[in-house]
């Protein structure tokens, strides 16, 4: 077995630039162990301009459970990374008020092979959507804010 996967998990209350953060993450990686991970599977999710009923969306509000959310993300990332034997895992997730077009989630997985990298990225994204305590409220142009119960179809 190789050494345990490197995890980096952050909740961010301010806008972030996914590619900038990926650049930093890759840099750390290539400084630490040059040339190990040949495969990177990445996912970036952004806020849509429409609410789930099609109305114009002003912003998404993301509530979380401080302490438990971090703990759950860590547990999910550890389990998924070990199950697939990947080398590095990055999760960035916004909290608070997020505007249409802004990145809300970034999942990045580095592994030696494309299969484990892709499978881990996909499973971890599903896991955090359903098993990490986050709640979305859609704020509409009319000032109406409604909690979403459930997730978008896969």
């Amino acid at each position: 077995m190789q050494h345990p996967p490197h995890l980096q998990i952050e909740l961010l209350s301010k806008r972030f630039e996914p590619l900038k953060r990926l650049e930093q993450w890759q840099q750390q990686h290539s400084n630490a162990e040059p040339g190990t991970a040949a495969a990177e599977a990445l996912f970036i999710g952004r806020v849509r301009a429409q609410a789930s009923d099609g109305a114009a969306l002003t912003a998404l509000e993301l509530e979380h459970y401080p302490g438990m959310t971090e703990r759950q993300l860590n547990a999910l990332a550890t389990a998924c990374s070990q199950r697939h034997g990947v080398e590095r895992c990055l999760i960035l997730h916004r909290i608070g008020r997020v505007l249409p077009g802004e990145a809300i989630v970034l999942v990045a997985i580095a592994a030696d092979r494309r299969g484990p990298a892709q499978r881990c990225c996909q499973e971890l994204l599903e896991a955090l959507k359903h098993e990490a305590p986050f709640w979305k409220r859609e704020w509409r142009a009319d000032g109406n804010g409604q909690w979403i119960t459930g997730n978008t179809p896969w």
Partner: protein
Amino acid sequence: MTGPDSATIRVRLFAGLREAAGWGEQEWSIEQARSPEAVWQQLRLGGDLLTVRIAINHTFAAADQPLQAGDELAFLPPISGG
């Protein structure tokens, strides 16, 4: 051995549940909080507990798991992250 002040649990509500109840955090006497489902019944929020997830001390838990003084009990409406 323990004074009456310490024989409590903390109850937390989030998102829609928090707004329905009008509060997000309360101390409850352990006497009235033997299990998550006992607390849920007293909350009278009207929803079905089956649609709500329960966490005790930041870990998912069953509705009938016994509570102990000092525990943090949370009711989590359907999750929608990512």
